[in-house]
């Protein structure tokens, strides 16, 4: 075996040079030379679709928006939980439905104008205006009358549930007590935009020569599909907190290129979703390189089961399919990327929500259930189809094998390019669809809402009045403990019916150079970079306790 190996290396002479040059045991992945100057470089992923925070939707949009704009609350650069942003404090009414925000006097736009309550009224009205066509307008539906206005049923913007009492006071009325509302106000969609600039330049207001922002960094240069260059905003109210002068965000959507750039020392941080690390690399890198950071996301990978199609309309069949999967074999045998096997839909990490039991795996019971449903040893079971986007094909192939082995069932796989996949999912045109859900805020409803009868992302088509009732009840519940219990009850009810088959909680894998400080695990949202700094003498400090995550 050893000699065959050498033969191959000879065939690929260049790579043999490489392997020898790298040495078998390097503590870090690639070049660890810090950048010259106080600059921080990272990959943002694909080209942002919008820099306009009110219209942005994608993860890579948010990676830039979070640097340029700040809402009433801001994401804590360490924990991501809401902390005071443009608003220095707020009052919440007893019924949890009215919030009064007090905007700080020293919050300024980058053109010197103060940020006022009127800016928020303008910005939120714009997001909700049907003509804007903001895709994430739904995030504002917590606010009274927002939904009706956005859907054109209410024309009068004055009836929207927010108003400026004076320049520095904003009052917001909600439809229901939303315990995570302060998370929402830190979200991009809730960020203010400068009215004068928008009215002057229209859709092109985010051009570097026009853009006016209120966040920690300023946009200096934007080369589409190449890079964005940002600089510290000296008029940011919290500017003394910033430690970096300049940020270069490279636009790279290819995993291999992004990883190559990190390895070559062109970037200091390869965040989750920032091009990403090729899955093939992970098993090899984990435990080998200290700059690879792995942490669970608030995200679940699961199959939507089309409950309208026999034999999948039978809950017993769906349960059998779920019980027959060895989730650990997928996460630890196949992917080896740090994902956590889970048969629960709501992932770990929600404070106060009951922790899920260990993942279920019982092939014997699965076979018995299948026989009970009328398909002993898979006899008479039709060949069904798994529809998956290309990047989750591997999991589908493993699943195919597991179901064949444990239940003698045969599935075909159809790998569809992402847009076509979504089209099929939305139109319920599948037997099993490989889905993914990333939570939007630190509350289990970001998952439980998904299986309500009316939710457009409920691809399985499962409708259950008891489930809907429990989730609706929880929505109005003021007591946090009772509320979480109701949600958990709903989830348990749902899992017994198995309209979705969860596999695992997705892990993020990021690369952070050893000389970078102030990068923390961001489990559901993008990380603000206020605390980031470069330690040029990192080698000298290496003996001391390493700052940052781990």
């Amino acid at each position, binding site marked *: 075996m050893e000699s065959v190996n050498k033969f191959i290396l000879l065939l690929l002479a*260049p*790579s043999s*040079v*490489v392997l020898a*040059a*790298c040495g078998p045991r390097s503590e870090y992945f690639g*070049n660890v030379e810090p950048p010259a100057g106080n600059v921080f470089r990272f990959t943002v992923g694909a*080209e942002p*679709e*919008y*820099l*306009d925070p009110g*219209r942005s*939707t*994608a993860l890579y949009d948010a990676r830039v928006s979070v640097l340029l704009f700040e809402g009433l609350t801001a994401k804590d650069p360490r924990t991501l939980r809401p902390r005071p942003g443009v608003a220095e404090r707020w009052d919440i009414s007893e019924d949890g439905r009215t919030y009064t925000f007090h905007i700080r006097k020293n919050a300024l736009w980058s053109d010197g104008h103060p940020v006022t309550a009127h800016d928020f009224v303008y910005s939120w009205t714009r997001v909700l205006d*049907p*003509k*804007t*066509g*903001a*895709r994430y*307008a*739904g995030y504002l539906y917590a606010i009274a009358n927002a939904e009706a206005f*956005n*859907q*054109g049923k209410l024309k009068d913007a004055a009836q929207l549930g927010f108003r400026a009492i004076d320049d520095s006071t904003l009052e917001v009325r909600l439809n229901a007590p939303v315990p995570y509302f302060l998370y929402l106000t830190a979200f991009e969609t809730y960020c203010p935009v400068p009215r004068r600039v928008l009215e002057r330049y229209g*859709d*092109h207001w*985010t*051009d570097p020569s026009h853009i006016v922002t209120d966040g920690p960094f300023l946009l200096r240069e934007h*080369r*589409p*599909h*190449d*890079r964005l260059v940002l600089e510290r905003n000296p008029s940011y109210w919290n500017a003394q907190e910033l430690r970096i002068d300049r940020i270069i965000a*490279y*636009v*790279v*959507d*290819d995993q*291999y*290129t992004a990883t*190559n*750039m990190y*390895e*070559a*020392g*062109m970037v200091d941080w390869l965040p989750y979703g920032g091009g990403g690390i090729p899955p093939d690399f992970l098993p090899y890198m984990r435990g080998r390189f200290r700059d690879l950071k792995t942490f669970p996301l608030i995200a679940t990978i699961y199959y939507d089961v089309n409950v309208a199609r026999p034999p999948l309309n039978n809950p017993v069949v769906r349960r059998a399919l779920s019980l027959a999967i060895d989730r650990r074999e997928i996460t630890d045998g196949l992917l080896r990327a740090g994902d956590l096997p889970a048969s629960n839909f709501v992932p770990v990490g929600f404070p106060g929500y009951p922790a899920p039991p260990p993942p279920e795996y019982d092939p014997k019971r699965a076979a018995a259930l299948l026989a009970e449903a009328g398909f002993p040893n898979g006899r008479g079971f039709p060949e069904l189809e798994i529809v998956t986007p290309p990047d989750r094909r591997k999991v589908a192939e493993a699943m195919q094998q597991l179901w064949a082995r444990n239940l003698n069932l045969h599935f075909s796989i159809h790998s569809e*390019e*992402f*847009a*076509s996949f*979504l*089209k*099929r999912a*939305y139109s319920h045109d599948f037997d099993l669809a490989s889905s*993914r859900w990333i939570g939007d805020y630190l509350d289990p409803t970001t998952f439980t809402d998904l299986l309500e009868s009316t*939710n*457009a*992302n409920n691809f399985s088509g499962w409708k259950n009045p008891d489930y809907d009732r429990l989730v609706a009840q929880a929505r109005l519940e003021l007591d946090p403990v009772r509320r979480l219990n109701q949600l958990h009850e709903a989830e348990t009810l749902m899992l017994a019916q198995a309209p979705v088959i969860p596999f695992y909680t997705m892990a993020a894998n990021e690369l952070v150079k050893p000389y970078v400080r102030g990068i923390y695990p961001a489990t559901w949202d993008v990380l603000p970079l206020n605390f980031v700094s470069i330690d040029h003498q990192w080698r000298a400090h290496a003996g001391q306790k390493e700052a940052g995550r781990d």
Partner: protein
Amino acid sequence: MRDRRKPAVIKFIIRRVLLSIPVIFMVATTTFFIMRLAPGGPFMSEKAIPPEIMANIQSKYGLDQPLLVQYGRYLRNLLHFDLGPSYKYPERTVNDIIIAGFPVSLELGLAALLFALVIGIPAGVIAAVNHRGLADHLTMAVIFFGISVPTFVVGPLLIFLFSLVLYWFPPGLWGSPEQLVLPAITLGLPYSVYVARLMRTEMVEVLEQDYIRTARAEGVGEFRILWKHALNGSLLPVVSFLGPAVADLVTGSIVVEKIFAIPGLGRYFVDSAFSRDYTVVLGTVLFYAILLILANLVVDVAYRVLDPRIEYS
């Protein structure tokens, strides 16, 4: 003679330009309908958008109107060279995108061509001078190898060696001269092979011409013969190869732009096709169609000017 040729050339050009209008129209029409018949739309997202918001977006871009109305409006805008806004990147228009992306592809294409000539011409000459000798066989072997190894093996191999091991060149993106080197070599390699082949074939023939023999007999130095006489005689086919090669290089850079994450027009095109960004797909295809038509026209005119035997049809 001259007097009769000039109007003929102009007539030829006018004819060709007129003939290309239906082609462009055809390209616009086929592309438009292929895209609209396909599943998925530009505003699909993993997180469902309420149907009301979707309807708002659709009407904002006029996508809620009948297909033929959209088609008509599209053609009308086309007449004004207005390719519309990008659906995926609404903060930019298709015109902005082409203006940003094309110079990058062009620069890459020209650099690759330069590499092809710098490598290909000497290689061809060496092979020809050593006709049927060891150097010839070696050069030809390398040439065949060059055709047989696809760019997407060469590219990653170069990145591997020069970016990840030696840290000499950046593994991707665009903007500095160092970032041009690896992609230009990757893209230019197969073309250097063509050039070398053409050069060798022609040179072998030229070297057997009488005037070369005469020069040799007169005692002119071998280097001087090559440089002064033979090279001039054999460069013509290489020159005529340049026309189609430029067009080929500019469109053929899609794969190289992908490997090196270069913000060129080829990559925009592929990205926009995958994300159903209709206007950008249409715009880039049309732009390339016009570019190819122009390139072909220039080549044909050049042939006709250089070679009087060809008649105008």
